[in-house]
């Protein structure tokens, strides 16, 4: 059974189901309880599970993340919420040196089952400190998993899997997808972490993407199809671990690769994909690899500038054409 709900509702539902299922699961963060956060992903959960399991905290990201680390180290399963990914600079040590390393540093005496839910992306005129896509940082931290969803169903399934995972997992939400509606299976629903989704099949070019940008890639693929170019769109869903095989199999068929993401290109996550292909699957390629990303600058406030900053269908289409 499935029903149509929004991305935000999918997030809420995944947490609800997992909290009902496992009493060790709790949510903590600023304004997650009474308010349900400014974007509504936890609305109603405090009323249902009480103030310990949906814990409003002081404005202290460092301590919030550490609260997650300490509670996870002794067996609870926290969902730590940082509204905007941009704020995670203030608790980077807790992610980099504590959460991602603790289980390993103690030789596996404990596990660190902790989810960090946070929002990436531009597009709401929130300017340079509220619009970043910083996922590549977290993909450079062994021990940390990173997932991103392009639609409500995957959001629910990935988040439930992340909550059940015995490792720390960063779950990226996209600000501009919060209101997106889609069919979502009812009840427990797990999307495996580490498995990409072929969002659209095609034989002429492979487009690898994740998160919000997948939808722009799909739209671009639709337009390209009208012009006779059949693009295969791979929605990675999981950045770490990465489903390399899905990419390699696709380019074995298409011989062309475009990588699209909202983050800045330079040292962005797309660089790793390109590097892996250049190392392990270069022979498949009949054309250079292309990246469509935000340019190497900060996200500007002014609407026309922000529009130019965030990659769009046009840029994807143009880039694909240079590959053909």
């Amino acid at each position: 059974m499935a029903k149509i709900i929004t991305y935000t509702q999918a997030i809420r539902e995944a947490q609800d189901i997992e909290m009902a299922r496992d009493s060790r699961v709790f949510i903590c963060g600023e304004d997650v309880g009474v308010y349900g956060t400014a974007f509504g992903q936890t609305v109603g959960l405090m009323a249902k599970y009480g103030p310990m399991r949906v814990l409003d905290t002081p404005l202290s990201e460092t301590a919030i993340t550490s609260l997650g680390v300490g509670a996870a180290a002794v067996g609870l399963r926290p969902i730590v919420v940082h509204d905007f990914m941009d704020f995670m600079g203030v608790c980077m040590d807790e992610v980099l040196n504590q959460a991602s390393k603790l289980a390993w540093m103690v030789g596996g005496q404990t596990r660190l089952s902790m989810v960090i839910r946070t929002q990436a992306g531009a597009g709401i005129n929130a300017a340079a400190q509220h619009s970043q896509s910083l996922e590549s940082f977290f993909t450079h931290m062994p021990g940390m998993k990173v997932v991103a969803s392009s639609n409500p169903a995957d959001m629910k399934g990935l988040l439930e899997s992340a909550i059940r995972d015995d490792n720390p997992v960063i779950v990226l939400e996209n600000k501009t997808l919060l209101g997106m509606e889609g069919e979502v299976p009812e009840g427990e629903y797990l999307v495996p972490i580490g498995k990409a989704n072929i969002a659209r099949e095609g034989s002429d070019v492979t487009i690898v993407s994740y998160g919000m940008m997948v939808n722009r890639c799909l739209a671009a693929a639709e337009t390209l199809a009208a012009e006779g170019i059949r693009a295969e769109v791979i929605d990675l869903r999981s950045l770490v671990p990465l489903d390399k095989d899905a990419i390699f199999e696709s380019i074995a068929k298409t011989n062309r690769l475009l990588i699209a993401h909202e983050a800045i290109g330079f040292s962005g996550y797309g660089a790793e994909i390109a590097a892996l292909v250049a190392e392990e699957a270069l022979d498949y390629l009949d054309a250079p690899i292309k990246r469509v990303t935000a340019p190497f600058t900060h996200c500007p406030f002014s609407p026309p500038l922000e529009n130019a900053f965030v990659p769009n269908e046009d840029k994807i289409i143009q880039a694909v054409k240079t590959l053909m």
Partner: protein
Amino acid sequence: MKSLKDENREEMLELLRMMVRIRAFEEKAARLFLDGKLIGFLHLYSGEEAVATGVCACLREDDYITSTHRGHGHCLAKGADINRMMAELYGKATGYSKDKGGSMHIADISKGIIGANGIVGAGIPIAVGAGFAQKYRETDGVAVTFFGDGASNRGTFHEALNMSAALNLPVIFICENNQFGMSTPFAYHSKNKTISQRAAAYDIPGVTVDGNDPIAVRDAAAIAVARARTGEGPTLIECLTWRHYGHFVGDSAPYKKPEDQTIWREKDPIPNFEKRLMKEGVANAAEIDKIQAETEEEIQAAVEFAEESPYPEIDVMFEDLDFSPADRKE
């Protein structure tokens, strides 16, 4: 409440004018937002005007301030240009940042405004750096940082207060305790009854004042600024206040109790100060109306300026990322 008898009349009218200007700016911004003319996040300062006004009344142009996400009031009070500020909200090229920044990043370095900041608490230790620069250059300038009750629980607060105390820097910490960090009440996010009591942790003076009374704020700030100018180090001032609206335009603030909202609306700094000026014979109704009217004109002019300004060229987003050494001012 202190009598205004011994106060300078011009200064009193300027205090009022600044509060009225900030309020008018914010109310106009809210209206423009609701009319779909402004976009993004707008955190309004309405209700808190006495804080920025009272503090900045003690500052010179060569003093520095750092501000917050709720920064319009601080910037206006420290002398930022209202036209350029309005243009900034509109996303126009004539804004302070060529419009790359927007509401949360207004700055006017020439006026000592190092900037609003979208990261809560980030401005606090930046002011320590500005205060350090004053001491390094052996000026008698100071640095002031504004921040909220929510921000007082960030690690930056602690590191900044300790560092300023230990290094004896001319930094003044102005905590705007408006009772909430977003939806979270002060009484929930802190066990301490006052924020000023945290000053004792660093052996520096701490004081709580009525943040809706510009005179009380100014008096506390004047003492702190005098101490800082004469090498006596930092002070923490907590100003009790209230934001009239939600956390941002669009937040209906369901977490606020209606009775509190009523109580605090009665403490609105502007009508109260106006009444006081009239009661104590400092100003009459006509003079006050004139200030209101003049301010309305200013705001109207600012809106026109902003609306008529062009959007920035796209390439502006690549400017100011790399200053080649050749550009360097020696």
